[in-house]
């Protein structure tokens, strides 16, 4: 074991600030995996949040503990608070899906192309106040009440975690502009909109950005965890050419970062899909203030070349390796990450996106143990 001279929180802060921590911080992004590890079905865990909270803590302890807890429970939206993401329906195991299936987003058109003008006129929050019931048949008050109930629960669970020396990762979660709009229109329809009515999309995004930022800040003011988890997937070079990114994602992401960093918060970019083309833009953001979290589709070694000395990188033990690989392969890959991406600091060893439900326990344990025992070549 590497002698630990920092607390979990200090270790994490050192990595974000691009300093050398006593050892590389580590975290599996686990939710459904923890439920599975404790012998519960996903349906049981969704029906009984006390059981799923306990499953999260028990699995945390069974794995020997680590530096941040991704989430203390199975929340959707990620945590409560008003409209930080597209108000898409979540399909719940045991209710909408088989008992032990994973929850899924029911991606449907939440508004039509004709609604962009209304969004541009009203902004994000007022638009949903007007549109939500028409779209879903349920009142916006009911949605907000559910979101606030989840938020209250989140706050209590965070306090319970803190009392045990466990630190949940984020204080709020917010969709990026493209993510929010794409989830409202569906990937296909949103893509058609970008080519056919770009000015309308742009005007609606312009009018929505401040609301999305403020909604996240409102949640943070209650959770008191100074990190904003920004959900990014669909603005990447995997989907769109850079001129689309420059117009519809990057200006708003910069506004998010300006707003959050000025409040002393850490923006955590959760980059699903391949972002390698977009990474050079991140060098325009403040040094040592943000985290670039990769899911294994982006070449993390290339990311290190691009962001070295500028931004902390988190990632990216692949789901397939955790599920199908042998522990020694996991160890080798984690050691390579520490040697190459961790060189000089600014690295957080995590699973590439969420830890798969059927990951082998010994593989996840190996990943955590490597961070605790392997100092790296640097």
């Amino acid at each position, binding site marked *: 074991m590497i002698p630990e001279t920092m607390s979990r929180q200090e270790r994490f802060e050192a990595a974000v600030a691009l300093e050398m921590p006593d050892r590389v911080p580590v975290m599996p992004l686990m939710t459904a995996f923890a439920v599975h590890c404790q012998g519960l079905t996903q349906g049981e865990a969704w029906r009984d949040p006390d059981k799923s909270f306990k499953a999260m803590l028990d699995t945390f302890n069974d794995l020997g503990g680590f530096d941040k807890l991704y989430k203390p429970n199975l929340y959707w939206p990620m945590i409560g608070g008003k409209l930080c993401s597209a108000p898409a329906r979540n399909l719940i195991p045991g209710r909408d899906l088989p008992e032990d299936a994973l929850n899924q987003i029911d991606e449907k058109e939440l508004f039509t192309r004709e609604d962009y003008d209304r969004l541009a006129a009203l902004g994000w929050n007022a638009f949903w106040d007007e549109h939500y019931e028409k779209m879903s048949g349920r009142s916006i008050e009911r949605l907000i009440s559910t979101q606030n109930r989840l938020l209250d629960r989140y706050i209590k669970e965070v306090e319970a975690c803190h009392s045990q020396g466990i630190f949940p990762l984020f204080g709020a979660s917010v969709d990026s502009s493209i993510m929010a709009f794409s989830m409202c229109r569906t990937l296909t329809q949103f893509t058609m909109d970008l080519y056919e009515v770009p000015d309308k999309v742009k005007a609606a995004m312009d009018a929505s950005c401040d609301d999305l930022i403020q909604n996240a800040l409102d949640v943070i003011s209650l959770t008191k965890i100074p990190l904003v988890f920004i959900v990014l997937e669909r603005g990447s070079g995997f989907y769109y050419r850079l001129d689309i990114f420059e117009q519809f994602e990057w200006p708003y992401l910069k506004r998010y970062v300006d707003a959050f960093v000025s409040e002393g918060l850490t923006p955590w970019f959760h980059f699903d899909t391949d972002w390698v083309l977009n990474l050079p833009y991140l060098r325009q953001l403040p040094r040592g203030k943000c985290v670039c979290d990769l899911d294994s589709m982006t070449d993390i070694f290339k990311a290190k070349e691009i962001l070295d000395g500028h931004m902390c990188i988190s990632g990216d033990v692949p789901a397939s390796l955790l599920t199908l690989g042998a522990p020694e392969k996991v160890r080798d890959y984690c050691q390579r990450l520490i040697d190459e991406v961790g060189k000089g600091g600014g690295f957080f060893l995590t699973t590439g996106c969420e830890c798969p439900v*059927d990951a082998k326990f010994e593989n996840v344990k190996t990943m955590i143990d490597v961070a605790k025992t392997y100092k790296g070549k640097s």
Partner: protein
Amino acid sequence: MSKSILKDAFLGMRRQEAIDLVEKGLRSGADPFTILKECRQAMEEVGKRFETGEFFLSELIYSAEVFKAVSSILEPDLTSNWPGDESKGVVVFGTPRGDVHDLGKNIVITMMRAQGLTVHDLGVDVPPERFIERLQETEAPILALSALITPAFISMRETISLLVEEGLRKNTLVIIGGGVTTELVRKEVGADAQTLDPTEAIKLCRRYIPDRSV
């Protein structure tokens, strides 16, 4: 109708223009099969530009929607004058049991159809037995399995085991794809190929059915 104008509409991501051109062509008595062939050639060019990095996934998505729109306009004329089997090959495609994601699958299927392949889309959460039944019914030589979450790996492996049991394995090319698949997954489940690239998937099909390729 000028062939290059229609192609330009596809490549320029101008859906309405492509629709107008096809409708105008039909009204002026153009052969619907010739128009369809031109649309397929345009889609093939989209695929080539994607391979070179000039086009992105969004251009595949957009042009696939244009192709779907013009196909539905052409369909009545094509059906009434069908000259026989013009398929360039048959594929059975689905998301295996345990996974209900279909975004990537649907994009690849549209691209495949646009390039002349006949695709039997079994949808999502498909049990192994259904894949086998459809392969037997259609005598399709290609099975494509798409997944976004890891529980689908078990179903992939079960499906391929069942292919072996039913004596279909050696005559079936099995391609897997989707965000969570890797070369490790390909080896573990026993598939022949793995790709995240729609145009690569089409190339794999073409290579396997060389005598009928477009």
